[in-house]
């Protein structure tokens, strides 16, 4: 390698270490926020990312976005390199409650404010922006209870067992069931947030429970879509009430077409822009909410139009 190449590499390395991209040509320093996301191949997280980038552009903030690809270890490394780069603030979309906690602790130890978005960690961050997953489970199950007049057999499809969203949506749904003694939970299984697995599970439920299932709560829309296809193919959809969570475009379209009964809208756009806004408030030493909850909303045929783009 020539001397020039080495010089260029050294310059580049120095530039990265100083976070040179944080400076505008005018010399005035733009705040830099490091973002570590759970998984950009998830539609909800992609929306979260998009809304953060839009908000950052509007507020004149520079974002460095890293994708942890579901690995908490990778996420901790990403936060470590943000600390090394001396970013002004960090937005963390945690992979796991426990395993992502070191990332929060490392940022706080370095004196860098950290905002958790969408899901929580055990270690308390500077601020949290997200939604209460119990609320999503509660809203969906309340809808089913109302449609069944408080009486009937329910089956629940769980997400990936042990993840915070699964545990909390489970809890919210079960709270409603406890208040409605006429509603019986006759089957509970995981389909791991996955459409194909949910389809298989629903086919098997059709076999083993047949006409005894009156309603199905799927803890996300991917699974609700899988269950929907299986119910339609068994020509049983008109006898079963089906609700999901997340309001992904496919599910919204299905609600609009009268195929899916309901979904629960998780406002990823609202979460993303509120996370950037909160980080900026912290940086400017303005008052901010330590815990900001963006509400979920029930989506049915009556109000689906306002959610469809």
């Amino acid at each position, binding site marked *: 390698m020539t001397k020039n190449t080495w010089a260029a590499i050294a310059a580049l390395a120095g530039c990265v270490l100083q976070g040179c991209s944080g400076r505008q040509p005018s010399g005035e320093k733009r705040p830099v926020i490091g973002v570590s996301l759970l998984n950009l*191949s998830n*539609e909800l997280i992609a929306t979260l990312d998009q809304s953060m980038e839009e908000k950052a552009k509007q507020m004149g903030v520079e974002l460095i976005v890293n994708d942890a690809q579901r690995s908490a270890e990778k996420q901790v490394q990403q936060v470590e390199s943000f600390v090394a780069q001396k970013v002004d603030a960090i937005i963390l979309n945690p992979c796991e409650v426990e395993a992502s906690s070191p990332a929060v602790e490392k940022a706080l130890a370095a004196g860098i404010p950290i905002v958790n978005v969408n899901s929580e960690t055990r270690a308390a961050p500077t601020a949290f922006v997200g939604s209460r997953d119990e609320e999503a489970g509660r809203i969906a199950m309340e809808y089913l209870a109302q449609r069944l007049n408080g009486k009937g057999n329910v089956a629940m499809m769980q997400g990936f067992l042990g993840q915070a969203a699964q545990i909390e949506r489970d809890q919210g749904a079960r709270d409603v069931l406890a208040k409605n003694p006429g509603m019986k939970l006759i089957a509970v299984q995981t389909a791991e947030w996955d*459409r194909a697995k949910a389809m298989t599970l629903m086919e098997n439920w059709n076999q083993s429970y047949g006409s005894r299932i009156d309603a199905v709560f799927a803890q996300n829309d991917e699974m609700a879509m899988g269950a929907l296809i299986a119910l339609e193919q068994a020509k049983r959809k008109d006898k079963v009430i089906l609700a999901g969570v997340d309001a992904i475009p496919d599910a919204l379209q299905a609600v609009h077409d009268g195929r899916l009964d309901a979904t629960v809208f998780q406002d990823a756009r609202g979460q993303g822009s509120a996370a950037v806004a909160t980080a900026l408030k912290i940086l400017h030493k303005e008052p901010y909410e330590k815990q900001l909850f963006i509400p979920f909303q029930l989506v049915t045929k009556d109000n689906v139009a306002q959610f469809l783009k």
Partner: protein
Amino acid sequence: MEKPKIKSWPASLGLPVALAVLVAALSLARPNFLNLANLVNLVRQISINGILAVGVTYVLLTGGVDLSLGSVVALSGVAAACFAHPGQYPAIVPVAIGILAGAACGAANGLVVARGKVAPFIVTLGMMTAARGLALLVSGGRPVSNLAPGFTHIGSGNIAGVPEPILIFFFVALLSRVLLTNMRFGRYVYAVGGNENAALASGVPVRSVKMAAYTLCGALAGLAGVVLASRITTGQPNAGIGYELDAIAAVVIGGTSLNGGVGGVDGTILGALLMGVINNGLDLLNVSSYYQQVVKGLIIVGAVWLDRSKDR
């Protein structure tokens, strides 16, 4: 050239016995297990894993392995879905594109394994990552939905009362059986896996055989991706995670050696059936998801153990 000895089913009875015991136990516990609707349901559920397992049988027989199956399923599903929107093309176009995308990945694997002499584990691990990345790139990280009825019919429709995925699985298995047991190519595959140097010395075109095995495996993964996308009515970039392990498990349960040269498609079909029966049965019994994973693991290892102990 001497015809290599091909171990054919049912040389050992461990697996059929395990399957029969399981089916008997399930039909006692749940009378609706053995009804026709559930059996059709069960075979339809295994058809995707079955197609993948038959494909990877070729590769395992040559003594290789293919870890990229799940990612290739996602890539070909997404690629097919991009050409399957309503009013775009007749269904044959997305199907062909999905299969070609799979075949291209397989051919790339085969090329590096056969020409570059890199360990198949590493080559296909690389493809696993690269194909997943391509699937995300092609789809922009979002599911590709709004597919034409002509395309989704493949996954949900029937021909003469039989679901199409089952028919596709059946033809794939039948053709592969003929190819492996009655054709020269099949003998070459066993020869390469049995003893590569001996095969080379007796004039087997080892490199071409490996190329063909990986390409076929990729093409079938592409086909499986098309069937999956059609069945779930979307091309999903994060579909198929872990499918390679289910497929390899089915093949190994079916008596094919991970060292190559021994086994065949018949065993693979039984292996895929066993895994399907376990999944379906545990759901019918409403066994808790936590126990299901433990039980599945035990049954898989137990079935292979039973099978191998009969051999000795």
